[in-house]
């Protein structure tokens, strides 16, 4: 036990260490690239100065300038070029570039000591970008030494370098103008004093600079230290937000599992069918749907939308959903349920959230529907093939006003009638131009459906119509859809589907789900075998390859049509068309046999038809086969 704890600790420490070094390394790489650019820029400036000197704008010895410039430019461009070549990804680049840069700066300083006092500060300012104290300190020390040497060199060799700034004349000095220029005369007269008195010049020229440099260097080292701390705290922030993201994911799956999501929902009832989906805009949402049997013949359907989005809405949603279901199961009338739930929700509702909701309770024997509305969008009814919005009293929202009394209405459904519930995430879905999907589009989409369409297909058709309209615009609101079909089930024509976690562990559940369906439709042994083999292949494909970085879902569905079945698998993973995979050579000898591609080949061989489609970011693979000979 203790050993395990220790091991875990070590593992965590190592992970932490790798992560930290990774971030620092990434920082070093970016810094390298920046420094390479600065080196190139400096080379360009030197080139410009050289050109200016030749053009007579500057007064530096041209031969000397030419030599020092070409040397500096070459010295700068080599490490910069190497850095760009390796894309900054070498440990030694930093040392090489900083050394070169410091030397080149010192060289320039030696050349034009008095003209370029600021150049001393350049190397350390560049070194700060590495956010490393040792790098900064060593650059500072090296610069100070080199700069001292450059000053000394500049003074001592003043004549050779012809830097007039170092020349001083003591009172009473005489300047003798010969045939040469004034400059030559000045240099000639001063030369003697000047070489011997360099310590005085060092004290006057170098020391003040060194002190100023000390201040700059101190600030730079501090900035580097702070920069490194900032990297660490940023990392801590990232880790914190990762943790929050993990918790949100968990919350999201808790919420998803709170809604009834196993379809067919009531396999034991043959009089109706129901299907629903909820797609939150954020990880968790405030929309919900619910359906449950109150007793053997009363089915309750609820759809609701909590104001706001995200976690606050989700928490309120959980309370509202639980209260509505609890009160309904007491056998109260829908209006009474809403009135009581409203009072309870009003208590302590300091966040002033509210819920719009619609609930209907259907007597599945005689079709009597009692419904109540709390400010929710009116459902669309498909009565006897006619599509229209249900006329219902709007009612006030839940959690809005304590003591509000809801009133209910009723109507009678005939066999074949359908109800379509939705939240404003559907009607107020916006496209990129800011246009709303709207109630008109919704109703005309529903009008365009086949009269005998099943719940699942109807919902999918609406969803796809909305997605087509919205296109690439971001989803702003939670989107919930529920379809209810009061048509007695036709065993010959049925669609069932279920969503699973895409992992190998779920394989047996997936297989059991499909085998059950096949058995219920009296598929023969041979077909069952062929279909399950193909199903395993396609499901395992998704679980292994569709979601390389995360855990995803796979929806498996069956559409029965007399003695045929269509099995479809839907995932939102990376696009992959299995049908494009090349067939293996099944006539090859044992040695040449490849194992790859065999699975998909089997699927293609044993099915009557296979289709692949990429739609709305989903891979949809469909296969069809006869289930009886």
């Amino acid at each position, binding site marked *: 036990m203790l050993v395990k704890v220790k091991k875990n600790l070590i593992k965590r420490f190592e992970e932490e260490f790798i992560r930290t070094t990774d971030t620092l390394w990434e920082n070093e790489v970016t810094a390298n690239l920046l420094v390479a650019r600065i080196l190139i820029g400096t080379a360009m400036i030197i080139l410009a100065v050289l050109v200016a000197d030749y053009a007579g704008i500057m007064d530096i010895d041209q031969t000397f300038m030419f030599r020092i410039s070409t040397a500096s430019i070459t010295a700068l461009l080599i490490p910069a070029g190497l850095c760009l070549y390796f894309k900054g990804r070498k440990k030694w680049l930093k040392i090489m570039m900083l050394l070169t840069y410091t030397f080149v700066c010192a060289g320039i300083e030696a050349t034009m000591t008095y003209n370029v006092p600021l150049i001393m500060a350049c190397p350390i300012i560049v070194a700060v970008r590495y956010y490393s104290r040792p790098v900064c300190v060593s650059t500072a020390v090296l610069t100070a030494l080199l700069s001292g040497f450059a000053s000394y060199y500049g003074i001592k060799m003043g004549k050779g370098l012809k830097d007039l700034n170092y020349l001083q004349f003591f009172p009473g000095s005489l300047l003798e103008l010969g045939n040469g220029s004034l400059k030559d005369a000045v240099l000639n007269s001063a030369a003697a004093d000047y070489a011997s008195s360099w310590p005085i010049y060092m004290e006057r020229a170098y020391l003040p600079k060194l002190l100023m440099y000390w201040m700059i260097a101190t600030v730079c080292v501090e900035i580097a230290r702070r920069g490194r701390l900032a990297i660490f705290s940023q990392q801590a922030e990232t880790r914190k937000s990762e943790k929050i993201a993990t918790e949100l994911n968990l919350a999201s799956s808790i919420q998803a599992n709170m809604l009834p999501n196993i379809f067919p929902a009531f396999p034991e009832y043959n009089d109706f069918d129901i299907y629903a989906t909820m797609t939150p805009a954020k990880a968790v949402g405030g929309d919900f749907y619910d359906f449950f049997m109150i007793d053997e013949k009363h089915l309750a359907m609820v759809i609701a939308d909590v104001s706001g989005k995200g976690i606050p809405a989700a928490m309120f949603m959980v309370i509202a959903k639980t209260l509505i279901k609890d009160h309904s199961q007491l056998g109260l009338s829908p209006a009474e349920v809403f009135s009581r739930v409203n009072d309870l929700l009003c208590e302590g509702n300091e966040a002033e959230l509210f819920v719009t909701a619609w609930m209907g309770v259907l007597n599945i024997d005689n079709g009597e529907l009692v419904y109540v509305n709390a400010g929710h969008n009116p459902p669309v009814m498909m009565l006897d093939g006619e599509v229209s919005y249900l006329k219902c009293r709007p009612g006030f929202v839940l959690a809005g006003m304590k003591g509000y009394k809801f009133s209910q209405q009723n109507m009678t459904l005939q066999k074949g009638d359908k109800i379509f519930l939705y939240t404003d995430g559907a009607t107020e879905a916006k496209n990129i131009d800011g246009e709303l999907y709207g109630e008109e589009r919704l109703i005309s989409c529903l009008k365009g459906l086949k009269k005998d369409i099943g719940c699942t297909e109807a919902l999918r058709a609406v969803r796809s119509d909305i997605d087509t309209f919205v296109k690439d615009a971001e989803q702003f609101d939670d989107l919930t859809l529920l379809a209810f079909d009061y048509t007695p089930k036709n065993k010959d024509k049925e669609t069932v589907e279920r969503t699973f976690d895409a992992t*190998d*562990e779920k*394989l*047996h559940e997936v*297989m059991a789900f499909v085998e059950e369906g096949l058995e219920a439709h009296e598929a023969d*042994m*041979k077909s*069952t*075998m*062929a279909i*399950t*083999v193909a199903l*395993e*292949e396609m499901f*395992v494909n998704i679980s292994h390859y569709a979601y390389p970085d995360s855990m995803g879902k796979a929806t498996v569905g069956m559409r029965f049509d007399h003695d045929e079945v269509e099995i479809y698998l839907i995932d939102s993973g990376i696009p992959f068309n299995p049908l494009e995979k090349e067939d293996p050579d*099944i*006539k090859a*000898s*044992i*040695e040449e*046999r490849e*194992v790859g591609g*065999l*699975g998909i*080949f*089997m699927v293609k*061989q*044993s099915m009557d038809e296979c289709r692949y489609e990429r739609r709305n970011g989903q891979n949809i693979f469909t296969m069809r086969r006869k289930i009886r000979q």
Partner: protein
Amino acid sequence: MEIIKTVNENVTDITLVGRLDTTTAPDLEKELKELFEQGTSQLSLNFEQLDYISSAGLRVLLFAQKSLSENGKMTIRNVKPEIMEVFDITGFIDILTIE
């Protein structure tokens, strides 16, 4: 899936019970690898109680057949018609010795 192993003289007899699929194929593969390491060269597989085989299972069979093709022998017996169908469409029927 259950793997029942018996050794008669130098023939190793393996009876598979249940399903040979993605989740169970690695078990069989591990078992076979151990046998081959111990020098088993005569393998007899009894499929009488094998109800299901997927491509993951076929991969293991191919692995075994390849391992034994030079200096060994693998035979499969009592194959159910549904599984025979799978062997047929994948061309495995030509490379396996089925009795």
